[in-house]
């Protein structure tokens, strides 16, 4: 191998190493990137949190009604009982609605849970606006404690005419490891 080839090789290696380091960083950057891109495109299945003031200004569309069904699920790591107070409601798009879920700590000790949710169909997610939700924060329940947890929402009247029913599914996981002190 002559000197020129050696130099060319070391240049190639340097470039390749930059690519490798860049792609390693890119792997981590994918986490925020997915959130940002999906949010911009409105395809992340996330719902928007709105203030009460904004929610109050929306005009309900009294011509339509949409059925909203409430599901609940508790992951195996958490010994709670967790159910919606009502299984489903029929709402006019734009009308602010308040429902409740009821959680009971079945154990004798204090535990921390965190709820995540999913909306079906996913296309409905971006029209589902919440002004209050127990899912925004961690929930701490003392041993045997029972809590009624509110959810205040409205459905954006701009939602596609084809959607006449939405499923909202909450799932609680044990967040003891991540409890805020």
């Amino acid at each position, binding site marked *: 191998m002559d000197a020129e080839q050696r130099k060319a090789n070391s240049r190639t290696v340097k470039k390749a190493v930059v690519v490798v380091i860049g792609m390693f960083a890119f792997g981590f950057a994918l986490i925020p990137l997915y959130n940002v891109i999906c949010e911009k495109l409105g395809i992340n299945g996330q719902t928007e949190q709105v203030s009460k003031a904004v929610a109050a200004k929306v005009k309900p569309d009294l011509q339509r009604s949409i059925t909203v069904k409430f599901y609940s699920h508790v992951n195996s790591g958490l010994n709670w009982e967790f159910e919606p107070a009502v299984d489903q409601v029929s709402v006019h798009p734009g009308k602010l609605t308040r429902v409740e879920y009821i959680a009971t700590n079945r154990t004798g000790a204090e535990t921390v849970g965190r709820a995540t949710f999913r909306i079906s169909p996913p296309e409905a997610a971006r029209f589902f606006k919440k002004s209050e939700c127990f899912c925004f924060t961690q929930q701490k329940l003392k041993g045997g404690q029972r809590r009624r947890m509110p959810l205040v929402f409205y459905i954006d009247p701009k939602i596609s005419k084809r959607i006449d029913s939405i499923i909202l599914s909450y*799932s609680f996981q044990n967040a003891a490891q991540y409890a805020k002190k």
Partner: protein
Amino acid sequence: MSEAVAHDHHHAHPTGLKRWLFTTNHKDIGTLYLWFSFTMFIVGGIMALVIRAELFEPGMQIVKPNFFNMMTTLHGLIMVFGAIMPAFVGLANWLIPMMIGAPDMALPRMNNWSFWILPFAATLLVAPMFMGGNFMDGQGPAFGWTFYAPLSTNYQNLGFFVFAVHLLGISSIMGSINIIATILNMRAPGMTLMKMPLFVWTWLITAFLLIAVMPVLAGAVTMLLTDRYFGTSFFIAAGGGDPVLFQHVFWFFGHPEVYIMILPAFGIVSHIIPTFARKKLFGYSSMVYATASIAFLSFIVWAHHMYTVGMPKAGILFFTYATMLIAVPTGVKVFNWVATMWRGAMTFETPMLFAIAFVVLFTFGGFTGLMLSISTADFQYHDSYFVVAHFHYVLVPGALFAIIAGVYYWLPKWTGNMYSETLGKWHFWLSAISVNLTFFPMHFVGLAGMPRRYADYQLQFAEFNMMSSIGGFVFGLSQLIFLYLVIKCIRGGKKATDQVWDNPEGLEWTVPSPAPYHTFETPPAVK
């Protein structure tokens, strides 16, 4: 083409174990890679046979469920990272310098290092299998080769797995950088990019895919590691993370990875078919562009592995159409191979038989892939044995048959002796029949609803599973013929000519058989 330039050895090189430990010679390292890969192929193959033995009949017979899960997981990981990928790197080491008229790889010492990391990585990967006292209670990874969070983050020996993957990643990144540097800087004068043999082209593109996605895999396992041990929550919902995001990151690596395992196979077949059809390869430049298009598309189709996670329609449609688009460049390739054979003076030596089987059966696997790309249909096929059948068709009679074809094709050049054509034909026919017996029935049980990765199944799937198991054992045992044939060929046999075959194209056929330890120390002139 220039005449062969063969030199006697300049320096005395070490013998025995030291020769292999310290070697920087591309041929030695290629040999090491190929033997390592064959060893892993046997280890992963034994695991596959444990799986098939358990599934021979419904009910639990031989192993415990967790052991079964460990077998499916390790079988997948070992075959992907231990058998298929190192085999291609081994072939690259042996062949690329000889094909482009270079004296050796660009970075010979790094080459040694990238090989010798592999046995340690493999040891780390399987070590937890032997922890837990009783062998049947081994604690190896049992979460599937795709190690989805949060199942994998709950695994107690995750550290072993993560560092094994890191080492495998480092090894293949170093190997790829070496291949890129060799191809870009070490070509003989006159060897322009568009004159490069297709194996070199496909490997160049594969190497770029590798340095682009292996670091993403390294990132993904690092995130698992910190989630498990350091309290982060990239993928843990309880801490505010998102488990679905893991699948996105994993498949962003995973889809290019499946092309990493097939592009060099395309290259090999594009060498073998012209030789035995005695015609020039049809559509050389379209082959190059098709390979590059497939590589590009591989980056924008990852979510077709996860149609059922609950993506919105816009996402599903995008990934469906992008995936179907891959059929176009792949179709170009298949067309070119068939057009090369069209009216050729064909003979059917063992490498050609494997290459033709590759074209037919890989295309078949491609068609089931096309079925899977249809998102609405995929909701039924998802995580069923239909998927298992699909990817085994592209990987076994696809990637593996191409590797075997390549070994038969270049073995006389490596050893200087012809292999036994009779044994080769036995190997081919037993493999080709048994591979179909193993995997074809899986389509049916998959469509009928048998889910993958379970140690037991419902009674109605019994007959097809029994067929698969018989096929699996025949396939496994017939690979021993291959081992015997290769050893016999290394030890002696009819002397091979320098050309070996009937007027094959490529610089590697201009050096003597067996290829001397050092070749092309003076670069050949390429017209």
